[in-house]
């Protein structure tokens, strides 16, 4: 199918493009931007007047809940949510049930996800069997099955000897290691940032040192092993400062933050709002501001949704007993735009953090509108205001701290490999 996306403003950070132009798609690929390819006769056209045409978003953390948690979400529901959110590539953490620690499980997931309307799925394999932190997985086999990186989701490897070996083994094959940083002893029982709000509400705190101590360990081991380290979900100013220092010392490390951490802080817990029960926790306003600055200056490589569908039973509980997590696929773009507007950033710079930059972290050819590349494209109206409601969300996870909020930016069309995977009801 040959499609012409006409009259839009093309914002393509990877190629330094921000100008009105038409985009031409044929055979699932981009065949022209601004220049009509010779002999191109469109079979269909998309009117993008008033809209931004950008690469489909690349999300570094989206839980699809398969296998094992199908009562919370299914591939169908979450892929529909991804397309509605303009996301065309996503990495999913290994914290499924069973965890993604065997090639068969990864092959099954890849197979299930191979539908035309579905975003490209990049599984992150488990670094240790069962995420247990004791035995290494068959990383090379898992990579052949489709894993692009290896990690522990939100768990950690307590035994530093095992962690060292796991990073060495991954480095042997050049596989990236994605780790989150939270010392389980210091975070034991914790449900909120260890600060003023937790003190007042009587909630068990997770101190910032839980992040920095774990971070120090994995940064030292990355330096020791030469493993390509990606730190998932930095939450504090102090953690960010350590990433900066590590880079200055020549350690190869990238990192991401979750979109909700960009806009919320501990005060948003309000009167025990379980929607604000997140992992890592929402930290102080000062931490949030540091994350915003770090994302703008590039210390933070990518912004992700940290999509975690939680059912109502999991959320309708006292704060400390509620499950952590929020739905995020359909909020990633509007929350990026909100940040860009508030921080007065050029749109291309902001969109880079959800397109070309995460694609670079993943090591995939995505997040670009370069001629010859896969036609993964998001067309959105930056002015349209959308109220986030349970009814509107396509994800089976209906819980987010942004429920009821009105946000600017509505996806009109999502193309995956040149195929129209989503178009908004007008």
């Amino acid at each position, binding site marked *: 199918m040959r499609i012409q996306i006409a009259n839009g403003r093309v914002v393509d950070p990877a190629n330094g493009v921000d100008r009105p132009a038409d985009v031409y798609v044929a055979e699932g690929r981009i065949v022209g931007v601004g220049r009509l390819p010779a002999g191109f006769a469109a079979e269909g056209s998309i009117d993008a007047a008033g809209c931004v045409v950008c690469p489909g978003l690349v999300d570094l953390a989206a839980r699809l809940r398969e296998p094992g948690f199908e009562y919370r979400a299914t591939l169908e529901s979450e892929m529909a949510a991804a397309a509605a959110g303009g996301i065309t590539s996503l990495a999913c953490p290994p914290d499924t049930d069973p965890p993604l620690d065997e090639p068969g499980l990864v092959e099954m997931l890849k197979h299930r996800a191979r539908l035309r309307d579905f975003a490209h799925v990049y599984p992150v394999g488990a670094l240790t069997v069962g995420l247990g932190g004791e035995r290494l997985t068959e990383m090379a086999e898992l990579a052949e099955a489709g894993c692009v990186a290896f990690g522990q989701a939100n768990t950690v490897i307590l035994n530093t000897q095992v962690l060292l070996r796991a990073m060495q083994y991954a480095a042997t094959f050049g596989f990236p290691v994605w780790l989150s940083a939270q010392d389980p002893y210091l975070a034991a029982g914790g449900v909120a940032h260890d600060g003023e709000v937790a003190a007042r509400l009587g*909630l068990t705190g997770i101190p910032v040192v839980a992040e920095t101590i774990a971070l120090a360990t994995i940064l030292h081991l990355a330096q020791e092993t030469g493993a390509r380290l990606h730190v998932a979900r930095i939450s504090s100013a102090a953690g960010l400062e350590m990433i900066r220092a590590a880079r200055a010392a020549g350690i190869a490390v990238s990192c991401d933050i979750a979109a909700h951490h960009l806009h919320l802080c501990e005060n948003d817990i*309000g009167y025990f709002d379980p929607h604000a029960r997140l992992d890592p926790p929402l930290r102080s306003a000062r931490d949030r501001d540091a994350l915003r600055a770090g994302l703008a200056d590039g210390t933070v490589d990518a912004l992700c949704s940290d999509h975690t569908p939680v059912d109502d039973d999991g959320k309708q509980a*006292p704060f400390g007993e509620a499950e952590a997590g929020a739905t995020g696929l359909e909020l990633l773009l509007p929350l990026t735009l909100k940040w860009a507007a508030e921080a007065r950033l050029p749109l291309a710079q902001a969109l880079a953090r959800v397109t070309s930059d995460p694609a670079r972290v993943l090591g995939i050819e995505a997040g670009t509108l370069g001629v010859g590349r896969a036609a993964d494209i998001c067309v959105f109206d930056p002015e349209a205001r959308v109220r986030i409601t349970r009814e509107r969300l396509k994800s089976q996870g209906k819980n987010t701290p942004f429920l009821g909020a009105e946000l600017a930016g509505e996806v009109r069309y999502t193309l995956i490999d040149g195929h129209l995977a989503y178009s908004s009801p007008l």
Partner: protein
Amino acid sequence: MIPNPQLNKNGELQHLLTIDGLPREIVVSILDAAAPFTEVAEREVKKVPLLRGKSVFNLFFENSTRTRTTFEIAAKRLSADVINLNINTSSTTKGETLLDTVDNLAAMQADMFIVRHAASGAPHLIAQHLRNIGADHIRVVNAGDGRHAHPTQGLLDMYTIRHYKKDFANLTVAIVGDVLHSRVARSQIHALNVLGVPEVRVVAPKTLLPSEVERMGVRVFNDMREGLRGVDVVMMLRLQNERMNGALLPSTQEYFKYYGLTPDKLELAKPDAIVMHPGPMNRGVEIDSAVADGGQAVILPQVTFGIAVRMAVMSMLAGN
């Protein structure tokens, strides 16, 4: 700004969930309303008909004979029908069970829930849920939730202080002990601040203080002798058994030596200082028997006033 969930749109008390964020006038009006109820206890017929025909459910997800009993007595003296439910829960019990229970009791035409729960915020969740199901005519009184709040205890403590000290304006008050795990301490701190006590101190080793506790409006003392110097009121906290030996404290003996209220430490306070304790006391751990039974202790009057304060709260929530 999120609206305070315990006030209705006219700013009247709808539920009593925490003292945090309550306007001063409401706190004072509860203390004022409690005064006449102290006299009810001295009558031959210890009853007033203010809650006649109302059903008060004691909903205790965490055991507490003492607090439950005082609420039961208070409700009965107001002529309410009292139903006691002790719902044993473990930490693994799911939230839906809690709300299922609430739905069931709401269907039994309850008028008031007195809630005790091990999780901070459980009474807020119940109040929110009652609003969601259109049953917010049912009032919720927090009888202690996790580490968060124990507002009736905070209020009865204020009543006691006012009884003995008349005025809050020139007082120095020290709260001593396990502030970190104490819902009582949090309610006391909020109450003392809203009533205008100029100096509220907390006295504890660093392991028993929450991070950034000073932002709640207190001065922090790690040395008990320093912390007690010149105070008008000493409010002791109970040290739970499971905290006594481990990573928080090395031993009860060392705790008693450095943070137990002994006669010689009490001498550093003002000569007319009063000593309070929410009970039950650990004699020889946080308080010496000589102090607990001494002339400055007002621990038993606290219990008596507690019933009057709880009567005042229930009566006010019932619309009187």
